[in-house]
């Protein structure tokens, strides 16, 4: 059964972007294409940070966006985790506070502390918890970003070029960790990349298909 069903269009300055795909429970979908092909826009539409012009987005049978029914859930109600390209850690908070930010719904200090301990251990970053993002390396930042997203218990995780900012050795290692984390986590990932190196993670890879539509407009489509 599909867990995420997507079919939408959005007009961008240079072309019309179409996304049409479904992701099953526990799958990793990779959208692979050159920069400027609208991959990040697709992720932002899924997360509710941008609004498509037409179509729908369903997650676990819940409508997140539906143009004809005028549904557009705001990002904080979608339950979708987002790993930004530069990680977007809160620079004025320690690693610990960054991670706890997503756990605000959890009642009780003790319970939150326990969740924090577990996720710090899972990602091997317990020793970093009192540092600020500026004091972390790229790989460490990524682990913190993953921990922060994990704590908010998303039903879907979106990753924008998660490995491209890292050097090659680190990339190899983090790719393995990401795969393992995905297995433990058991939620689908949608990952965007311009680099073949990240495609190894995929259960399914979609590439952009460019065309000219009947009105003579440029169109780019990521479709199954």
């Amino acid at each position, binding site marked *: 059964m599909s867990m995420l069903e997507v079919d939408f269009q959005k007009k961008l300055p240079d072309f019309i972007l179409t996304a049409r795909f479904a992701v099953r429970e526990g799958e990793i979908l990779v959208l692979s294409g050159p920069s400027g092909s609208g991959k990040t826009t697709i992720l932002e539409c899924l*997360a*509710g*940070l941008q609004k498509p012009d037409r179509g729908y987005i369903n997650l676990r049978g819940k409508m997140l966006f539906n143009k004809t029914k005028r549904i557009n859930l*705001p*990002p*904080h109600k*979608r*339950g*979708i*985790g*987002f790993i*930004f390209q*530069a*990680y*977007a*850690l*809160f*620079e*004025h908070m320690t690693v610990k506070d960054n991670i706890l*930010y*997503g756990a*605000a*719904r959890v009642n009780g200090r003790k319970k939150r502390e326990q969740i924090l301990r577990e996720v710090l251990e899972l990602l091997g970053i317990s020793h970093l918890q009192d540092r*600020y*993002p*500026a*004091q972390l390396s*790229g790989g460490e*930042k990524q682990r913190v970003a993953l921990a*922060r*997203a994990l704590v*908010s218990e*998303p039903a879907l995780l979106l990753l924008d070029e998660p490995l491209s*900012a890292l050097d090659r050795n680190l990339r190899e290692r983090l790719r393995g960790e990401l795969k393992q984390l995905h297995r433990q986590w058991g939620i689908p990932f949608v990952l965007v990349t311009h680099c073949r190196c990240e495609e190894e993670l995929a259960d399914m890879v979609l590439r952009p298909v460019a065309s000219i539509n009947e009105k003579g407009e440029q169109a780019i489509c990521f479709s199954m």
Partner: protein
Amino acid sequence: MSDEALTALLLSLRVALLATAVASVSGVACARLLTRAHFPGKDTLEAVLLLPLVLPPTVVGFGLLLFLGRNGPLAWVFPGQILFTWWSAVIASAVVAFPLMYQNAKAAFESVDINQERAARTLGAGEVRVFFTVSLPLAWPGIMAGLVLAFARALGEFGATLMVAGNIPGKTQTAPMAIYFAVEAGDYGTAVPLVVIVLLFSFAVIFWLNWWSRNRVARHALRRRG
């Protein structure tokens, strides 16, 4: 120092603090609302908001006289007479201090990394929580600078205040006014202590702000590396 000078000094402080409070809350709110909003007439609205910065204080004062007078459009907001009370000095100072607060806060909000705000939203934070836990703390250095400048401007307000609040010793006479009228009357014994105190106070505030922002920059120097 005479009692009258001390009273003027304390009134100045009270007026400036209240005016800064009014200007900062409204300035930060306007800045936040206008930073990422787009609508027709936005440029015009922004120009109007910044107007008190470039207008001669007497023009602002004249406008306030019309606005706050018995037949003015704002008469219903304030019960009774407001002109020539110290409250109108607060209003005049707040109006001239507002653009400084607004401009600094707006620049500060614009410099905040939009993805940190978006990350907060994807982590389940609504707009209010995003504002108080992410946007405001990240914009804080710029807002702080605006706060100090607004306070300094409010403390030094003269022209508009004289027109709407007058120079009533013990009631509406602020330090700048006491200095002006003392010097005019040749009473240097009253003027000089006031001048020295205002000078030292202003110096201390600016000195502290520079020290604070340098320390803050040093503390987070590494931040923007990624």
